[in-house]
């Protein structure tokens, strides 16, 4: 059982690590405000589908790692991801039933909440940034969500078929 669980967790951990890598890949100046929040998107997907295993605790730990990688205040991304995943887990039964279009709209709202918490903490701490740096990731994140969703669902379907 435990071996089975480990083999099931490994791909999910790998997806989160891969999302972290995409977050620190250097991008040209004009593109970097529009980098999707890969980590947030990945966490939304897993929290929505496996809320028992991937809930606020794992989101918090990933958030702390993200804070260190970004060099932001320790706890900023942790708090934002934690709240975002909380909402996702709280309503995961409803969210799961949504058609893709409605799901994408929900993801937009979740990402906006995430960016708002970041914005709020930045404001309290006295860090100022242009508006695109907040809206860019929300828009591109919403745009890539359907692709990411289909990609992950395809992987899970395949894993289920093989086991």
């Amino acid at each position, binding site marked *: 059982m435990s071996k089975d669980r480990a083999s099931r967790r490994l791909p999910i951990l790998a997806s989160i690590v891969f999302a972290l890598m995409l977050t620190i890949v250097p991008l040209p100046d004009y593109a970097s405000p529009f980098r999707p929040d890969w980590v947030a998107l990945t966490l939304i997907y897993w929290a929505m589908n496996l809320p*028992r295993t991937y809930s606020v605790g794992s989101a918090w730990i990933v958030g702390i790692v993200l804070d260190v990688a970004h060099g932001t205040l320790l706890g900023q991304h942790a708090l934002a991801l934690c*709240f975002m995943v909380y909402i996702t887990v709280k309503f995961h039964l409803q969210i799961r039933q949504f058609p893709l279009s409605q799901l994408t709209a929900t993801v937009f709202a979740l990402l906006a909440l995430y960016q708002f918490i970041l914005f709020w903490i930045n404001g309290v701490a006295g860090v100022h940034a242009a508006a695109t740096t907040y809206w860019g990731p929300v828009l591109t994140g919403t745009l890539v969500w359907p692709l990411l969703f289909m990609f992950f669902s395809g992987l899970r379907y395949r894993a289920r078929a093989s086991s």
Partner: protein
Amino acid sequence: MAAAPTDNQHRSPNTPALGLRVLLLAGLSILLLVTDHQNNHLDATRKAIGAAVYPLRIVVDAPISVWRWLGESTASRNELRLENSRLNAERLLTHARLQRYAALEAENTRLRAMLQATANVRDQVRVAEIMSVSANPFRHVLVVNKGTRDGVYDGQAMLDADGVVGQVIEAGLLSSQGVLISDPDHALPIEVNRNGLRTIAVGTGEYDRLDLPFLPNNADINEGDLLVASGLGGAFPAGYPVAVVESVTRIPREPFAAVSARPAAALNQVREIMLIWSVSDDPETVVTEAGTDE
């Protein structure tokens, strides 16, 4: 998959605990935020987690390194010859300049000795390679591949061939994070090279612009003036070029002139930076404080 049904079976007892967990974690986050914002007690924690992120950075950087290596190793003979001759010419030129500089330095120490001024600061330089730049648009931060193992310390100045790039804010064991002078939270003490007028250059969040917000309307500053680090505050050694004044707008009804400058270093194009160690006989001339705040 087996996960979905187990999820549903166990969820109901889990739901009330979820809110509690979120509250606890939120409280912990806010505690961390406040502690981190007010002092640097959490540096050790940050370094430990940073060491865990280091392998990720290497993996991310690997394709870029391989690409550069490929580019270098497949460059044609003609290109290499051209580059070689260009570098040779450049070397001759800098060598000539250096000779003059040596004479000037000797003269300077002599004059200083006559004035009984503080001991002159000699600088030691080491090249570090940049691993990643600005993962976060809110902060202009870069990561270099030298850490405390190589003697890097918090607050150390970083330069490139043209001027000041920034300073180290977090020296890890194997890699360090540095903040660029264009970061909106960064300010550095400078002086106008032409007349020694001292002021402060503040980052704007744009790579090619610094603001000089504290100059009165009648200040003697013109477009094209070179701004150098003044050495006050201790973080940056004096005399290194920082920026060139780009525009000076004097508004009569405002107390301060609007002055903006273009950084001398190409902040978004650097690949290698130089870390500066100030070597001095007088311990008081080197202050190693992390002065990232204004």
